[in-house]
């Protein structure tokens, strides 16, 4: 085979549904033979869609899936040497356990005694010896899950796909099955591709984690990488608890954020806008006279192995995990070691969107005329007595040929729940929010398909329908050629 040990490669996989929704865009991944890879992300991030494309239930709109170097992206599921463990098990209710597990082998026309031998062996593997003649409905959720795993494994697939297989089990059972699955993986040496939204599950089991959001890969790495060196604010927020602050580099390996000055280990040029991630367990509570930042304890929650302490420091709220308790109202100092700070170069959050020129020769966005001077924007232009816009040669400008973009900063946009407000330029729903220490950063999906990033100090809910008030005097217009 000689393709650097990769059993499966996904190249520029994109899935766009008929309604234009892009579930997965430009997904690239290489999986080594025998690896345990986990797709991790919130619901709707495209992880299950990607798995379904590997299984063959969905076909990618673009891109190739190479299995041992051969393109299988258009093959039906029954032609792929890949088996799936489904989210709700999908055991056949009209068959007993033996018939369920033997389904794939019978399909291959295997001799009967060989089928019987293989089924017995795989039942042993999942600890269900003697369950052959039980019916599906007499089994507990955990047992059904084992049967589902056995039914897939008995076909000796090259890759086993698991779609949130432990989602329906209770916590204790889930923990047990996590370890068992991991042991099974190590024993069989089959490549596992696992889908979950549970970050702890992903960190426990995987060799490699693919963090996804809104159809795109956010980060690929080992569990340690993902946890310690998150690639962006989304990954930091999604994996584990984090304090996320906006800040700036003030010197070599020196950063200012959360109202304090910190020494860090990341070498980022001075003056760079940054996002700093500090894990709650990396913050040490000290006396009020010490530490880089100070504040007042506003809540203490006992969590079993540690206390979760929230401290108000200026405009910021800092979450700390500590084995030592604190009293609400205490003045405390907080200290963070350099290697407890993860610095990321801040993504540019400026919203850029296209505006049109309408027949009246005015700029327009989403049906609203923007009261701004076009004669200043288009050099040498002027208006005639009919208010038409003429270019420097005195020709009437064709609105179709003018392309203008507008830029607005997240903090300049205001949200309102009164979408009928006349100042509302466009409405949309909140699809994502991240707490940034002293404000929330929201992603608003609008009906135009354009996403807006809005900063707001108040907490709104995911899925809220909001109107965006975008002040025209804060917009920066650029003429595009």
């Amino acid at each position, binding site marked *: 085979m000689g393709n650097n040990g990769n059993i499966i490669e996904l190249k520029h996989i994109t899935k766009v549904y008929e309604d234009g929704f892009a579930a997965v865009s430009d997904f690239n991944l290489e999986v080594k033979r025998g690896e345990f890879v986990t797709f991790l992300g919130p619901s709707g991030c495209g992880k299950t869609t990607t798995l379904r494309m590997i*299984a063959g239930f969905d076909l990618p709109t673009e891109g190739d899936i190479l299995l041992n170097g051969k393109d299988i992206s258009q093959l039906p599921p029954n032609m792929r040497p890949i088996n799936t463990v489904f989210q709700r098990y999908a055991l056949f209710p009209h068959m007993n356990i033996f018939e369920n597990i033997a*389904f*794939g082998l019978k399909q291959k026309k295997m001799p009967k005694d060989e089928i019987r031998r293989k089924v017995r062996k795989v039942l042993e593997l999942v600890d269900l010896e003697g369950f052959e003649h039980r019916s599906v409905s007499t089994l507990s959720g955990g047992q059904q899950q084992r049967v589902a795993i056995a039914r*897939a494994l008995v076909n000796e697939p090259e890759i086993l796909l698991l779609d949130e297989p432990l989602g329906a089990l209770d916590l204790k059972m889930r923990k047990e099955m996590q370890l068992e699955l991991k042991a099974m993986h190590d024993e069989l040496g089959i490549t596992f591709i696992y889908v979950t939204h549970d970050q702890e599950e992903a960190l426990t089991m995987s060799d490699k984690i693919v963090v996804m959001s809104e159809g795109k890969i956010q980060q690929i790495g080992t569990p340690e990488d993902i946890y310690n060196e998150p690639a962006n604010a989304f990954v930091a927020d999604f994996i584990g608890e984090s304090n996320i602050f906006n800040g700036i580099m003030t010197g070599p390996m020196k950063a200012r954020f959360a109202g304090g000055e910190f020494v860090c280990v990341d070498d980022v040029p001075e003056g760079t806008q940054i996002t700093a991630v500090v894990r709650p367990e990396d913050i040490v509570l000290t006396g009020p006279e010490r530490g880089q930042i100070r504040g007042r304890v506003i809540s203490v929650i006992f969590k079993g192995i540690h206390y979760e302490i929230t401290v108000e420091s200026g405009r910021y709220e800092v979450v700390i995990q500590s084995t030592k308790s604190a009293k609400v109202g205490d003045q405390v100092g907080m200290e963070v070691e350099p290697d407890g700070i993860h610095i990321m170069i801040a993504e540019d959050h400026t919203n850029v969107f296209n505006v049109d020129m309408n027949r009246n020769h005015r700029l327009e966005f989403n049906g609203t005329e923007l009261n701004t001077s076009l004669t200043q924007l288009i050099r040498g232009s002027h208006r005639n007595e009919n208010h038409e816009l003429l270019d420097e040669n005195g020709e009437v400008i064709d609105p179709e040929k003018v392309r203008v973009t507008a830029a607005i900063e997240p903090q300049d946009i205001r949200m309102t729940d009164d979408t009928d407000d006349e100042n509302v330029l466009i409405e949309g729903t909140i699809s994502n929010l991240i707490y940034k220490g002293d404000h929330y950063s929201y992603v608003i999906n609008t009906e135009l398909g354009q996403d807006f990033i809005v900063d707001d100090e108040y907490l709104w809910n995911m899925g809220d329908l909001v109107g965006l008030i975008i002040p025209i005097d804060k917009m920066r217009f650029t003429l595009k050629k």
Partner: protein
Amino acid sequence: MKFSRKTLGIPYAVFLVLFVAAPLLVLFYYAFTNGQGQFTVQNLTDFFTDPNTLGTLFYSLLIAAATTALCLLLAYPAAYILATSRLKAKSVIIMIFVMPMWINFSLRITALKEILTVIEGNLAFYPFLNSVIGMTYDFLPFMILPIYNTIVRLDGSLIEAAKDLGANDRQAFFRVTLPLSVPGIVSGVSMVFLPAMTNYVVLDMLYNNTYIMGSLIGSYFSAYNWHGGSMIALVLLGIICLFTLLTGGMETEDARTGGALL
């Protein structure tokens, strides 16, 4: 005033006594008595010795079986296509199948009669065929709906699982979809087969001179032979009970999948 479970149940109890228990008792009484009010099993022996009644029973079974088979043959593909397609106008198409049920029964059959007359020339030429066509037309929705409901509720991941395990579309259908739609088929069959044995109004309206069990009972009662008529009704009741018992094994399965019926 407070309503207890018991007080709320009174209207239903009254209904059951008046319209179910009492008529059944009357039926039993007439079936096992003669004109003088004496107990007799004569009516029963008459039924099984009279070639006329036995012939009618056989003919009715034949019509019912043919009707059911034809309904199933038409309904299953229709229900399957409707349930598995991603048509946006799905509910409209289902409504089109069901809509004849909302049109007056006699109007429907009269229309059918006119059409058949145009095609066949004289309705009397094909009494058996016309009976089956009329009944199929009348009962088709009762076959489509339960089958549609069973298939539409099938967990799509089961079919995906079958394909995942190496089955192609055809194999997945015969090994998973079809066996799992049996409850809907049983529901549909029992809703078509039994009425088809007795619904003689369809035949009457199609100027059909053939007799089925319903017409036989009707003729006994119009000749004031209440005892013989009751016995025939009772025998039919027995057949229905037997049929229900035979398909009873499916009933629990049906209830588990949420009831295939409507």
